[in-house]
């Protein structure tokens, strides 16, 4: 019967909490806590992945050697000296990976910020103004949504001469082609917030539109914006990797996509040099996975229904376990022959 104790403790803690919060400035903190996701094993995994890869990108380049140094040992597999082997002209793959991760994170963050600003403008401002502006902005974002992004990016980058194709050019091109989906999400959310009483109250009291948007509406949308930002970062890293892989990336930067580009052009695949082309893609996939897991947790804040689903499921699981254990112990007490456990499941 020991398993009943935690549940009892939890309920006791629940009832004990409100009085403690009532004293002092606790309510403010609990308000902010509502905006933070609950820590679950999944969220922890996601955060570990993100923090780990970010640290690798930030600190890694200081710890590894020169990524461009050419050695007389082309295409050797992983060894003690080079944990991830060497490229076909003897460059250290691990060193390249560290620098490339930094490059990819940079562009992902940059595009994420730019795209979020664009989508906030078109989504929130349009929905707030309503009528013609709203119609025009939402038409614009719908049009951008149906025009396939990557072919457009490829065409734009194809027209820009190689010399003037810098980091910022690529970032702007990626941002311009990727804001539409989140603008639509933000528009829908803004429409629902805009008609609430306190927004109307602040409008009536003569607040200027920008103040109403930033002070009254924006805080309600923060979780949505955060989730859209995370999506934008994933999309940007993937998009940049695709562009760089076909040789259209920024000419002065090294990213995970450029690494894959050189691996493909250095015949890593036919030569079987898996240590050259597996790590960059895996890095992108793991980082993207970490971000999407974090996004699931943000979703729980936006849509509290999901949180209830998780809590209910956990309760159901706990109840089932308890029942099973009860049944087993009662059987043991009766002294009957214990049935095989399989029947329980």
């Amino acid at each position, binding site marked *: 019967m020991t398993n009943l104790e935690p549940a009892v403790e939890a309920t006791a803690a629940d009832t004990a909490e409100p009085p403690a919060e009532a004293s002092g400035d606790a309510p403010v903190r609990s308000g902010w806590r509502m905006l933070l996701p609950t820590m679950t094993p999944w969220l922890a995994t996601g955060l570990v992945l993100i923090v780990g890869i970010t640290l690798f990108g930030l600190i890694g380049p200081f710890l590894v050697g020169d990524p461009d140094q050419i050695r007389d040992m082309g295409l050797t597999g992983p060894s003690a000296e080079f944990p991830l082997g060497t490229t076909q002209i003897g460059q250290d793959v691990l060193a390249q990976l560290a620098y490339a991760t930094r490059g990819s994170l940079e562009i992902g963050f940059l595009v994420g910020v730019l795209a979020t600003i664009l989508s906030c403008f078109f989504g929130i401002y349009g929905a707030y103004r309503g009528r013609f502006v709203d119609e025009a902005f939402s038409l614009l974002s*719908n049009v951008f949504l*149906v025009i*396939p992004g*990557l072919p457009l990016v490829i*065409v734009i980058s194809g*027209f820009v001469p190689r010399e003037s194709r810098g980091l910022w050019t690529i970032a702007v091109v990626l941002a311009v082609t990727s804001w539409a989906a989140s603008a639509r999400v933000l528009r829908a959310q803004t429409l629902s917030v805009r008609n609430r009483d306190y927004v109307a109250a602040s409008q009536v009291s003569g607040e200027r539109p920008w103040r109403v948007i930033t002070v009254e509406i924006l805080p309600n949308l923060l979780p949505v914006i955060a989730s859209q930002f995370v999506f934008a970062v994933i999309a940007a890293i993937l998009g940049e*990797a695709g562009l760089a*892989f076909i040789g259209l990336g920024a000419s002065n930067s090294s990213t995970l996509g450029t690494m894959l580009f050189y691996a493909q052009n250095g015949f890593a695949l036919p030569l079987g040099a898996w240590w050259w*082309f597996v790590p960059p893609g895996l890095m992108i996939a793991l980082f993207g996975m970490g971000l999407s897991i974090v996004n699931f947790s943000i979703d729980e804040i936006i849509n509290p229904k999901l949180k209830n689903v998780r809590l209910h499921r956990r309760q159901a699981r706990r109840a089932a376990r308890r029942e099973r254990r009860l049944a087993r112990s009662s059987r043991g007490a009766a002294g009957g022959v214990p049935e095989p456990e399989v029947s329980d499941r």
Partner: protein
Amino acid sequence: MSYFLRKLGFYAVALWAALTLNFAIPRMLPGNPVDILLAKLQQRGGTVSQETREAYALLLGGGDSGPLWQQYIDYFKNLLHGDLGVSVSYYPAQVSDVIGQSIPWTVVLVGLSTIIAAVLGVSLGAFAGWKPGTWLDSLVPATTLLAAVPYFWLALILTYLLARVLGWFPMQGGYDVVLDPGWNAEFIGSAIQYGFLPALTIVLASIGGWLLGMRNMMVSTLSEDYILTAEAKGLSPRKILRSYASRNAVLPSVAGFAISLGFVVSGSVITEQVFSYPGLGGRLLGAVQNNDYALMQGVFLFITLAVLGANLVVDLLYGIIDPRTRARS
């Protein structure tokens, strides 16, 4: 009826926007594409007459053929005639002919694998949502990994494992080059064998989104009252799953087809490059590498047209499946 008119109107605007983008991009960006093209043409032994120059200038700007609005009108006139210029990298072939040759490859590959991914993903998602907590449901987080994997990297990995290590499939190409393209069993068999890996890549990379969306909608649909009513009436669980839950849960997936199709097309462009597949994506990238601007624009226009067309069809179908959308507009 006004729903359909609205949709048609929207896609007309989207088409116009795409055409205008195509017109504006080369004129807004630095560089002089016309000169590069003409230089290439001369290298290939083409004669550069005043007419070719004007034709390119109309497509790409930089010429002296009148004011901008005049160029704009002429550009639309040329498009209406289906005249997209001469391809430099396939000289002397017309751009429209080059595109025409590669369309079937892409349409079959991308179309088939999108349909397979959608059907598989939606039905798996329906089952995962129907019984939360089963082994299928625990697979759902793994699909986020698949969704974050770059298409082309997945293609590289699959090629490495299935083609190089195991040797089951050819590494590159769209068909056995010994054979002549034609409608015979041998050629089609070879095309299927060569197309399997690219198709597998697209299916694997895009199935996660369908699965996740369907599962989440299924979970929220199951808490609706009409499901409870159906259960209370004593309907069999299979009937409830098929006629009550899935039918309603699948609607957002159908409505989201536009966004996913855009992603699939974008992903397949680069996937085709990995496999040297003779489709539109490969042509687009070849055109970019060879500075073949005319072909580049032509392919972009065509991809956009195809995506817009597919979306229009899906949207119109959606209006028929879900009467609420018609009532709302």
